């Protein structure tokens, strides 16, 4: 199983990731991101080494099956059957695979209530994230006739509530992948896919975030990876978040003088997305051995949204929504040692207009022309991991500045950042402990009256910060390593909120009242044999 996992990952040079279900998407202005989103390794699922940009090993080509000699004498020819036999399938090797990522935790806070995520930023520490699981069913085939390898991937994602906690016999589920991919199409390294897919690059594990490229779309893609280490991929597709900016269904009288009404899609426009990623790996050592290297990525996205019309209120005069669009440019530089998942990522990304909002978010604050023109997001981020004998350290950090399309500052306008440092200590191969220190800071473009100083002048922007301290001892059945899973673990996390951060919560919210937030959890995290989400 592990070998298969490595093969799959090696064919997919980008590190994997899992996306958050649309229902969990943060509101506009929280980034396009996946706050509370799923997991990924620093470069790989399934216990594979993190994505370091090294030239992926060749997949083992299946040997052609030799025909065995006949063991019996030929029988007399029989009369042809009345019903013709179905045509024989093309000879190939195939297998069914199962992969998964998951995290499940039972957690309490200091008062005995459920433990909750205490982040004040869109991408904070993942230590106190909620339950999430993906189950991937995959059919892999190698077609002898063409030499093409195909994957059919279906990924079912599940999130809270869990029945044994809520007692509710219902499922919060989504299909996150449903696509067919073909590799080595005539030319070695040429890949194409079509379907519904997560397309992602490298993540920051400790922040549970893909800062450069993170698309979820219905579409298709093509990529080519040259053996010298240069690759490129092009993705096109569409999404239609089920929010009024994109979609509105209204009732109209039935046609042809019939009774009743018919629901019609009055506003029905989708985001058309194109993304181009260019990447180059440069290894500084023998290609067949772990050695240091560098990866550089240039990335861009383009968005187009056609015009449309909507009904502000039932029966009201229809209003026009102009066409819209957006773009993203960014890049990444990665250095890796080639040993024990040691690497550093540096990311930078700028998004304008429609692309500045979250992928599934409703662009909340538009400009006066009801478009997203003027919105922008700047992201600078870093991630890293190092391991030496029993000691390791993971880190992640970012700064993000988001401005919506409405010119004046408002609550959706945010500057935020986080730094997370997670040293780990292994006790032999089977156990270890992770310590985590984090600092999160955010400011929002609002002017507000500090309730603690009702006679003072209103303040703005609202600024808050949180210190996070955590410890997580774990059992690691698969052995030592920061990107090795599964883990059975205990977590204690302390969040220390300043006065400003408490103001981010509404009146009577427990987080507004508490300066200290304790989180005790017992849970598990695993990943194995999942497809990569890049290609």
């Amino acid at each position, binding site marked *: 199983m592990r070998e298969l996992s490595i093969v799959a990952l090696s064919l997919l040079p980008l590190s994997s990731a899992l996306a958050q279900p649309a229902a969990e998407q943060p509101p506009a202005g929280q980034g396009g991101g996946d706050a509370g989103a799923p997991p990924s390794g620093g470069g790989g699922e399934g216990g594979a080494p993190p994505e370091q940009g090294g030239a992926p090993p060749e997949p083992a080509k299946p040997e052609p099956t030799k025909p065995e000699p006949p063991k019996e004498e030929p029988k007399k020819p029989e009369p042809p059957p009345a019903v013709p036999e179905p045509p024989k399938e093309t000879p190939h090797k195939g297998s069914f695979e199962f992969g998964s990522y998951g995290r499940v935790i039972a957690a309490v806070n200091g008062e005995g209530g459920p433990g909750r995520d205490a982040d004040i930023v869109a991408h904070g520490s993942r230590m106190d994230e909620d339950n999430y699981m993906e189950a991937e069913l995959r059919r892999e085939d190698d077609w002898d006739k063409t030499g093409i390898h195909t994957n059919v991937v279906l990924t079912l994602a599940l999130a809270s509530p869990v029945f044994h906690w809520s007692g509710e016999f219902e499922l919060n589920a989504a299909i996150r992948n449903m696509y067919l991919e073909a590799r080595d199409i005539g030319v070695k390294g040429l890949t194409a896919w079509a379907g519904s897919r997560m397309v992602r690059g490298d993540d920051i594990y400790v922040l549970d975030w893909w800062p450069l490229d993170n698309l979820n779309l219905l579409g298709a893609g093509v990529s080519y990876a040259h053996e010298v280490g240069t690759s490129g991929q092009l993705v096109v597709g569409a999404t239609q978040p089920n929010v009024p900016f994109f979609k509105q269904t209204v009732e109209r009288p039935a046609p042809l003088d019939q009774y009743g009404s018919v629901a019609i899609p009055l506003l029905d426009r989708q985001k058309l997305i194109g993304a181009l990623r260019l990447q180059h790996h440069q290894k500084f050592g023998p290609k067949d051995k772990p050695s240091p290297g560098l990866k*550089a990525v*240039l990335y861009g996205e383009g968005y187009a949204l056609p015009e449309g019309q909507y009904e*502000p209120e039932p029966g009201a005069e229809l209003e026009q929504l102009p066409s819209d669009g957006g773009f993203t440019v960014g890049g990444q530089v990665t250095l890796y040692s080639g040993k024990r998942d040691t690497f550093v990522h*540096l990311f930078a990304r700028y998004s*304008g207009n429609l692309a500045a909002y979250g992928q599934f978010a409703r662009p909340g604050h538009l400009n006066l022309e*009801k478009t997203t023109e003027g919105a922008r997001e700047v992201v600078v981020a870093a991630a890293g991991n190092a391991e030496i004998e029993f000691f390791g350290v993971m880190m992640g950090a970012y700064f993000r500045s988001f401005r919506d399309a409405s010119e004046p500052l408002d609550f959706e*306008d945010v*500057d935020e950042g986080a730094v997370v440092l997670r040293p780990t200590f292994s006790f032999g191969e089977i156990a270890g402990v992770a310590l985590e220190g984090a600092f999160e800071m955010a400011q929002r473009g609002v002017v507000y009256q500090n309730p603690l100083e009702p*006679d003072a002048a209103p303040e703005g922007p609202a600024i808050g910060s949180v210190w996070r301290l955590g410890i997580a001892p774990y059992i690691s059945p698969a052995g030592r390593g920061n990107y090795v899973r599964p883990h059975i673990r205990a977590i204690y996390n302390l969040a220390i909120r300043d006065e400003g951060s408490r103001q981010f919560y509404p009146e009577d919210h427990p987080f507004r009242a508490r300066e200290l937030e304790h989180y005790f959890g017992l849970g598990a995290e695993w990943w194995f044999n999942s497809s990569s989400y890049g290609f």
Partner: protein
Amino acid sequence: MKKRLGSRSLALTALVVATAALHNGSGCMSYDEGLEGEITLQTHVEDWRDEVIYQVLVDRFADGDEGNNYRVDRSAMGKYHGGDWKGLEGQLDYLQELGVTTLWISPIIKNVDTDAGFDGYHGYWAQDLTALNPHFGDLAALRSLVNACHERGMKVIVDIVTNHLGQLFYYDINMNGEPDDRVAGDGVSSTVTHINEYDPDFDPRGIQSRTSLGEAGPAPVIFTYDPATNHVPPQPEVFQNPLAYNRKGRTYNFEDPDQLVHGDFPGGLKDVNTVLCEARDGVGVKEAMVDSFARWVELTDIDGFRIDTVKHVEREFWRYFTQKLRQRLADKGKANFIMFGEAFDGRDNLIGAFTKNDLPSEDQLAWENECVTDGRPLTGDQLDSVFYFSQYFTAIRDVFQLGQSTKRIEDLWALRPVNWGTEAMELGTGVAPSDMPINFIDNHDVPRFLFTGSREGLHNALTFVFTVQGVPCIYYGTEQELAGGNDPSNREDLWPTGFPTDGPTFDVIRRLSAIRRDSAALRRGAISVVWSSDRSGDEEDAGVFAFERAGGDAGDDYALVVFNANPSKDSAPSFNGANLTTSLPQGTELVDVLGDGQTFTVGAGGELALDPLAPQSALILVPN
């Protein structure tokens, strides 16, 4: 390798930064108006009579920020439409070209958001006197508007309400803990009565609870809680105390003084007991009102208050509120802060009463002074002025719209020195209220002039309010000839007009503003009627009215304004052979600055012979 990495990282960063710069930039989060630090209060007004006030219903004037368009529904006149302070600031050029010098903006504080299908877009349903209405912007936006106005020499007056708060509680008459709406009585042994526990009819004893066995004492007051519509406990906290309200139910007879002052304003707007103070009664309503509204001056440097529904407020409150507010602002450097009230009433003696500084009885004053803790006892001072509603009914409606005789205007004006205060308030505007009524032809509470009137009548009425004694106040949209009827039809969106500046009425207002600006007499001069007529219809001088503006604080400046308000007949200031007589010496040459520059020469004895004026027209004559 470091070097290579460094160069690539730099290149990448440069690419992103360059794109960001080319797009929209990305600076640090900061407010242009600098929220840090205190505002230095300043006096921006020399003489309020020099001003031209423009009334803005913020929600309907201009939308400058889509980001605050929460719950906007432009298909319904009773819902939020999206106008805001930024939109208003964006049209200051337009207003300045019109000749406006002062903005009166609708209430700024946080309101009940929506109630019974209507929204609080107008601002008169206060919920939190300490917070701004987020539909219109935040403190930065408001401060930016005020600063932008001040930079242009314009002033800002904010509308406030002290009489009532929004519909924040109900009277639990049947004590079932729910706000009921029911019909009581059988029509035989008892009267059939509709009872709405939010808005029950006035009861002088206070609203009584009632069970099947009869009355059961004062009805409990229950504050509703619905954050989605901002039905949440009012602020400041004193307004969460039921004692802070009169709790007598809805006024249905405005002639009853008890109902007038102590009843809830129709619509369930809860009447505040503005008699109460902390020092004397242990319930600091008066102090909270002063503190809350003074704070907005201190935070924004606004220049005045227009005060809503003053006749429904306990009279003693105005002495406390106006005097303590003036003192507090003066101590911080703000003088000439104007406070004028709205008493929607045609009785001149009633509206003028709020401007008189007559002292109450000694006992009454002593009782009121028990609320004073700063060592500065109360005097008789009240408001600096009020809206001239009696003139609205007598002159604008009866004369300029209905064509009735003009003598009534002279008669009304003759009462002003009696009915209105004749002394300026201490630390006030420096002008006697009787010399500074707030003149208007329509507003958000009455149909627009053009709802029934003609364009010519409108122009004539505008000429009237720009030339009579006092301060002209123009309702937004008048310049674009909006013609809505009663509330809310008279609260149209202005932005669909596109803010053109070449319309005929825009041009008239622009010219009148300029004429007024150039004439000290029209701004500050005393007024004396030189022609009025008690005739109407087709009679000889029906519709003619004329007055001189001279003396007072106008120096040697002089203006003579002559109207023909008759809607259909040419009329001249001439009757039975007698012509208009001015105070000017013979031979003075006058020129019509409103029209085509025609000149006239004063004859012997100050007599001025004028040709008949066309229907609904006027002359503004000044020395040539």
